[in-house]
């Protein structure tokens, strides 16, 4: 069977799982083996194994299989989570990553994995002594890993003994229930009988679900939820739910539903706790009795669990069916069509005004509302949470910090902030630069931090938030800050600054100098940063995205980079101008101001037309010449309209005929054939359906 058609899907999902693995491993390292985290890692590795085996990528399957073995041992408590194990698992993930990349580039995804497999097989490294049996779950007997690990036969045995139900649980469900019980929930088995004469059984079932969801969490249904919804059951179905309420409360909540016979409700909490107790007693003989509601006692599942208490059962409800993957090209197409609809609506309105049909305006108003709603929705669909960029940083920060022997805590805020795809795709690299910069130069080594009276662990904050029509991203560290004197000296040394200029500059302006090309204040150049190409590249990138960047730094306290970006690059604010009969758009983000002047105010310096604008010499550019506008018989005003555009420190006055006004425009590419016109950034479609070209100010300067 030809699998190539599934390759794209495989790659996308594989990347998602690799990302999950990375995140979960980081969490595992922090929490020293939270049970849920381990499960998550296991699931991802397992899925990856299945997927890759199906696709015939055997090396990936082999490696994930090896990982699974180790994870299994971790889950069973045979070996303990240690930095070495986590490092090994990270190495595996890296290896998987490179294999997946290889497949992306058309390779076969086979890389030598023998070494890693060997290390996975050889088990725990020297310093991770397997847990002695006596200390397993020391002193508590709470369903710890060894109890959770109990195979299905164990559990069903327990169930049979109690003679309650014949429901089979998988590992995942068992864990869920046990965690819930640990947190003080009760677990019930319900048999719901619906009246034989009922015509809409699924509707009744739905009401049952609704009611139960108000008071608890449905773990499992027999038959499956889907079958129940499709009425593939006779008159009764079974449910397993967890709730803090008593059986009586559950019964009462169901009684109000008509056509429902008295439900059978049995608590099966005991099945799980008794079973766990029996297990631990078997293991340890004379351990104290069970204390199911104190998970803190559990030394192995401790941290991870406490961090996310009641959330576990709720979050783990599968949500896969609520999202769909859509090719971005289709979204772009949808966007185009909506744009076209808006233009056509405009035309219809014009016709409506001309024809004066009485009913038309009302209908048009309706249509107006719907189209603008549609436009908003499509815009929203294109938005992606910035998390898709942020998510790869924790791993990067961890690795860098370890390489440099620093202790750094990365705090991420506002990762749910949404941005248009066009911006998301571009923002990654600049952020990597800034983070690396902070880790390398900002945050000091632990000893230096202690000497400065700070905690050993440095703090790096990455945050995103909306501010009006912009998104603000901040990278802040609590390191040593920038030293203005050092920067000033460096700038003088490199000839970027003249001595008399240096005297006049204030603190902020000096700090801004580090964005200049060729200036690096790091004493030692590392491979991480400090080659003097970083920050000016960041600044350039941000500016091409129509954004801005500013720095705030206090010596000894830290540095903060603040990036401001437009929400989308697909839609921008622009000033429409007329040159003879042609209309052009100038992006507003490049415009400093507009002004008008009389022809006699224009001077010439060395063949270059200039004007004096508030004492500064401003070079002028005649757009007519640059854009080769054919002269037309359009009435010329006496005055000259000038649009002052800026990029960085550079300013130029563009001479245009008429300023039409400000408008939101949708940027459209001109296509490959016309891709590289130096002064044109793209096209846009105006309200009248005509195409207008967008002037590339950066290219013009």
């Amino acid at each position: 069977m030809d699998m190539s058609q599934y390759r794209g899907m495989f790659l996308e999902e594989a990347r998602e799982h690799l990302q999950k693995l990375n995140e979960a491993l980081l969490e595992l390292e922090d929490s020293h083996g939270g049970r849920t985290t381990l499960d998550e890692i296991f699931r991802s590795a397992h899925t990856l194994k299945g997927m890759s085996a199906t696709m015939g990528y055997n090396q990936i399957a082999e490696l994930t299989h090896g990982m699974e073995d180790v994870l299994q041992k971790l889950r069973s408590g045979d070996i303990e989570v240690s930095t070495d194990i986590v490092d090994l698992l990270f190495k595996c993930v890296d290896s998987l990553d490179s294999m997946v990349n290889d497949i992306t580039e058309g390779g076969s995804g086979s890389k030598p994995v023998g070494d890693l497999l060997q290390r996975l097989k050889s088990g725990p490294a020297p310093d991770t002594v397997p847990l002695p049996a006596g200390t397993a779950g020391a002193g508590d007997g709470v369903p710890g890993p060894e109890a959770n690990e109990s195979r299905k036969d164990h559990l069903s045995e327990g169930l049979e003994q109690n003679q309650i139900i014949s429901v089979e649980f998988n590992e995942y469900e068992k864990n869920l229930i046990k965690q819930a019980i640990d947190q003080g929930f009760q677990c019930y088995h319900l048999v719901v009988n619906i009246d034989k004469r009922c015509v809409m059984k699924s509707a009744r079932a739905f009401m049952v679900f609704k009611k139960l969801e108000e008071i608890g969490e449905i773990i499992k249904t027999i038959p499956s939820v889907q079958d129940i919804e499709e009425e593939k059951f006779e008159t009764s179905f079974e449910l397993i739910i967890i709730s803090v309420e008593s059986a009586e409360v559950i019964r009462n909540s169901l009684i109000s539903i008509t056509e429902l016979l008295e439900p059978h409700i049995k608590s099966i909490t005991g099945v799980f706790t008794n079973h766990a107790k029996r297990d631990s007693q078997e293991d340890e003989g004379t351990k104290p009795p069970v204390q199911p509601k104190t998970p803190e006692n559990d030394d192995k599942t401790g941290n991870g669990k406490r961090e996310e208490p009641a959330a576990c059962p709720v979050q783990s409800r599968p949500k896969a069916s609520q999202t769909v993957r859509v090719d971005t090209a289709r979204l772009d197409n949808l966007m185009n069509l909506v744009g076209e609809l808006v233009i056509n609506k405009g035309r219809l309105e014009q016709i409506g005004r001309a024809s004066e049909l009485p009913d038309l305006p009302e209908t048009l108003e309706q249509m107006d509302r719907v189209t603008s709603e549609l436009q908003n929705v499509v815009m929203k669909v294109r938005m992606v949470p910035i998390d898709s960029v942020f998510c790869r940083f924790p791993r990067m920060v961890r690795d860098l910090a370890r390489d440099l022997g620093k202790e750094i805590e990365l705090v991420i805020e506002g990762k749910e902030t949404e941005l248009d795809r066009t911006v998301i795709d571009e923002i990654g690299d600049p952020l990597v630069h800034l983070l690396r910069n902070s880790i390398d130069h900002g945050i000091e080594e632990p000893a230096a931090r202690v000497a400065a009276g700070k905690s050993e662990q440095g703090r790096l904050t990455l945050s995103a938030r909306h501010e009006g029509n912009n998104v603000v991203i901040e990278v802040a560290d609590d390191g040593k800050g920038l030293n203005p004197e050092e920067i000033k000296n460096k700038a003088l040394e490199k000839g970027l600054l003249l001595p008399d200029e240096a005297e006049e500059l204030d603190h902020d302006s000096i700090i801004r100098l580090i964005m200049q090309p060729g200036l690096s204040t790091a004493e030692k150049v590392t491979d991480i940063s400090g080659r003097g190409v970083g920050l000016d590249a960041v600044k350039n990138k941000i500016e091409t995205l129509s954004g801005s960047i500013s720095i705030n730094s206090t010596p000894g306290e830290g540095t903060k980079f603040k990036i401001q970006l437009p929400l989308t690059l697909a839609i921008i604010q622009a000033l429409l101008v007329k040159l003879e009969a042609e209309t052009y758009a100038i992006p507003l983000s490049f415009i400093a101001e507009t002004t008008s002047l009389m022809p006699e105010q224009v001077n010439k310096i060395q063949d270059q037309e200039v004007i004096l604008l508030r004492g500064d010499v401003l070079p002028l550019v005649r757009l007519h010449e640059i854009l080769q506008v054919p002269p037309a018989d359009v009435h010329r005003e006496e005055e000259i309209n000038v649009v002052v555009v800026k990029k960085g420190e550079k300013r130029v006055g563009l001479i245009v005929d008429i300023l039409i006004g400000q408008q939101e425009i949708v940027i459209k590419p001109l296509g490959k054939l016309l891709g590289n016109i130096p002064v044109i950034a793209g096209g846009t479609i105006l309200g009248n359906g005509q195409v207008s070209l967008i002037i590339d100010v950066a290219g013009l300067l």
Partner: protein
Amino acid sequence: MESDIQVISCTVAEEEYAIDIRNVQEIIKLLDITRVPRVCSCIEGVINLRGMVIPVMNMRKRFCLPDKTPDETSRIVIINWGESMIGMLVDSASEVIRLPEHAVESPPSVKSNINLEFFSGIGKLGNRLLIMLDLEKVFDI
């Protein structure tokens, strides 16, 4: 069995040209064309085709033939070209013609009055001669 090929016939300066129908997205009447500065002179400009901005190539200029002001019969043939679209401005375009494969001959070696570099063959239909366009070369500017 021999297969037929289908082509769209269009005229440029009295010559009849043929474009493989598989490349043709649609044929439209003339729209407002926005001039684009600083590009090859054969690019007439860009048009708005249902929300997409598409470049239009003036075939008369491309073939270095005398230009003429577009009129009622002028058409833009929209070509699907890779992931983008390109418009070809021609004097007229109307017919879909089915040509048996054997009716297509390779270009003559003798020099004729038409531009040889752009065509891939000559199609014969009765006493009509259709110049088969090699789009790869036409769009290579």
